[in-house]
């Protein structure tokens, strides 16, 4: 009779014979939990509990941070200059490192077989965007370019040159797209927007200061000429010294070449449509003026 090996083996045996695991049976791995340091206790650390001798120090009445005993403090003596002027109105872009992107893909929180969008990143809890705090989206940062090895079709709002190179080297595609604050809020939280029953708005174009960035092929802008983008890909490959893989021969070519229309917020949904969540239906307008408005 052939001796068949039991799957699981000794571990399964143990599981079957040892008592059940309860809180009373568990203990942390030695070295993982270090007891916290408590200052000011014991025979030598006690007495004044590490607070010093009398005065404000012991009695906990020290003046505010920055006070210099009456001398004009540093933070008041230095004259102001407009470095921080209008800082609360400046657009902010949450950085996303390639390392974090790889981590999310490895853990399965992002699906590289589908286009990666800001919605997907927020759903996978990869980034946290606050559209109401002047966040205009996500910027791709090149930290972790050495460990990045995933083929993705990713859409961000800003990307550095080295990050673009790292993604294209692995056969992926980067696109930079602009979302005005309302569109960004809808993109980050689509379900509450659909529940509000409004038609999907069209994405607005960037302002005069950013339109140059998004029409530039070097930044892979969504308003740039596709021909120039291809040339820029080749040029970047030459600059960074890698062979540009031919995406047209890829099996996922169709997915990689998926791109949003400049006025579109979601893949597969056009502006003007109403998504009905309870009945899982999409309503489209039929009025000509509405159709004309929503199709620009």
């Amino acid at each position, binding site marked *: 009779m052939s001796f068949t090996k039991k799957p699981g083996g000794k571990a399964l045996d143990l599981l079957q014979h040892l008592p059940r695991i309860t809180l009373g049976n568990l203990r942390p791995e030695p070295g993982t939990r270090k007891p916290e340091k408590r200052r000011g206790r014991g025979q030598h650390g006690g007495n004044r509990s590490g607070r010093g001798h009398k005065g404000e120090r012991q009695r906990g009445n020290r003046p505010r941070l920055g006070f210099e005993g009456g001398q004009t403090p540093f933070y008041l003596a230095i004259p102001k200059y407009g470095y921080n002027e209008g800082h609360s109105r400046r657009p902010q872009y949450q950085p996303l490192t390639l390392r974090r992107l790889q981590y999310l893909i490895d853990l399965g929180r992002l699906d590289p077989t*589908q286009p990666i969008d800001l919605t997907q990143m927020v759903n*996978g809890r990869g980034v946290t965007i606050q559209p109401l705090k002047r966040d205009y989206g996500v910027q791709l940062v090149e930290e972790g370019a050495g460990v990045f090895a995933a083929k993705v079709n990713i859409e961000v709002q800003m990307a550095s040159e080295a990050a673009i190179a790292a993604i294209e080297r692995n056969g992926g595609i980067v696109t930079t797209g602009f979302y005005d604050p309302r569109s960004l809020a809808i993109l980050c939280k689509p379900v509450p927007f659909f529940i509000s029953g409004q038609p999907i708005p069209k994405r607005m174009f960037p302002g005069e200061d950013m339109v140059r960035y998004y029409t530039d092929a070097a930044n892979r802008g969504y308003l740039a000429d596709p021909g120039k983008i291809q040339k820029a890909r080749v040029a970047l490959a030459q600059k960074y010294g890698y062979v540009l893989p031919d995406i047209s021969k890829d099996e996922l070519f169709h997915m990689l070449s998926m791109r949003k229309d400049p006025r579109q917020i979601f893949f597969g949904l056009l502006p003007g449509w109403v998504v*009905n969540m*309870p009945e899982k239906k999409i309503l489209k307008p039929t009025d000509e003026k509405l159709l004309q408005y929503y199709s620009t």
Partner: protein
Amino acid sequence: MAAYMLCRRTAMFCWAIRGLSSIKSYIPVSAQCGLLQQIAHYNPKPLKLNLKNPYIPDKDSENTPEWQKTAKYDRKLFGRYGFSSGVNPAELWPSHAQLEEMIAEEREWNPPLEVLLKNVEAKEMEANAKRLGREKLIAGNMAKMPKMVADWRREKREAKLKLKEEKARRDRLLAEARERFGYALDPRSPKFLEMVSDIEKEEKKKKNDAKTKQTEDHFPTIYF
């Protein structure tokens, strides 16, 4: 969750890398592509739409607050409860008047792409022109600099010489006065000034005589 929006048969805008014009196509249900990828298909938070006992306000009664009779609230009702909320779906979209307003607002605050690009280009051209003009001005002025420097130096030198000359003349006159009168005379006194004017007259006479002599040598007077 990641494949939520794309598992449906929907129209999409495709963009070809090979530079083809954009084409609309239906994508099939997402393929596995032979990759054993572990995707975390986590369960999202349950969407509590309260479909069993919805609250749909009575439009005709007076007790319902005003804000529950607005169009915005109707849209929210439709969004939550669907067709069973009794809202006419045609009211979800803006009316013609509202649409006109929206179009006007957009034309003013969000101009189309061509206009935007034109504005940007115009601004850039203006800035460039200004910068070029300034640079030309600076270049022109810098080209003039060596000449201006030489002129200024020459003028300074001449002024210095003149001063020296003037001083020498004054010293000479003082010495002359001292010789004539025998004591150091104040240059501001009337005697000194008299003497100065006398000297000047003598010099003038001498010059005139020299001139007439010269002209006589060249053109001697003929007496008839």
